[in-house]
């Protein structure tokens, strides 16, 4: 009887912890990339999303460009995702995502970009 109650309590705590973790950590970097970034940078990161039309003043960065991407530090990438181009001396076409994604999600995206550029 006592064992049953203890097991139920442990189960409940684990369930609540699991739900809480999911909410804290948010979406996976691949999910976020495909949902937000791919609009301009393309689903494979080649800078060819549907918003990269001929008329736009700048072309989105190709995230698979090893040479170009390796010039950026993790902090550079994190800053431009969080604060956008306007705050980091780049084009304002890159919007700020700091109020959309959590810091943890942005840090995870930086790691994902490093995989895309192999750098």
């Amino acid at each position: 009887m006592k064992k049953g109650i203890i097991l139920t309590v442990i189960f409940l705590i684990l369930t609540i912890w699991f739900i809480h973790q999911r909410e804290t950590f948010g979406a996976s970097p691949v999910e976020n990339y495909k949902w937000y970034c791919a609009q301009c940078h393309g689903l494979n990161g080649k800078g060819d999303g549907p918003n990269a039309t001929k008329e736009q003043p700048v072309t989105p960065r190709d995230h698979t460009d090893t040479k170009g991407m390796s010039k950026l530090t993790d902090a550079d990438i994190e800053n431009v995702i969080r604060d956008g181009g306007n705050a980091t001396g780049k084009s304002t076409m890159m919007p700020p995502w700091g109020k959309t994604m959590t810091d943890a999600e942005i840090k995870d995206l930086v790691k994902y970009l490093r995989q895309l550029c192999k750098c």
Partner: protein
Amino acid sequence: MKWIKVYQKLIVVSFSMVFTGILAGTVNADVAGGQKIFEAKECGACHLTKGPNQDKTIEDKLKRKGPDLWFAGSKFKKEWLVKWLQDPKSIRQMAYNSIEKKNPGDHSKLSDKEASDVTDYLMTLTSIDVVSGTIQAKKDLMGKMVFEKKQGCYGCHLSMRGAKVAGGLTGPSLVDAGKRLQGDWIYAYLKNPQAIIPVKRMPTYAGVLNDSEMKSVAAYVASF
């Protein structure tokens, strides 16, 4: 003599009661009729009419097949909605929730009467987070500056760039947005997107733009 006057008054009162009843009945009939058409055509299979939207994750959002309408009465201009339902032209270049497929532009068309009734119904759906009378459409200079320079809104939204239509394709087109949208809705969405569209591809600008900038952008877009 006194009795005649009372009798006359009674007649006037009962006539006005009957007339008001007929009038109210007609109005309700349009709303109720509109709702019936909405249900018969299964519009609810794609459009949410009972809000607020409870989506929490991208996964939740991806299950949706069309834009929410639970705040339609706070979002759209009535004259625009009634016309659009009869001749629906794509507002989004891409299919809903997709950045790969083009919008097939196959939204169902309604007859004049159906469009009018459905509009009457949709205009009853409102959000308490949209406060009417806050935003007046105008060619606001600060709004223009934010829209074009401080933030690149046209990165995702089509809009008029001089005499030409240009811009990105993943956001709803903002060409003639002022004919379609209420400025108060634009402001409410910018200020508190969680209350209007909790999961969206557009960045959250609350906390990036200040309140006066958000009001200016809303007024500017409402002037399109």
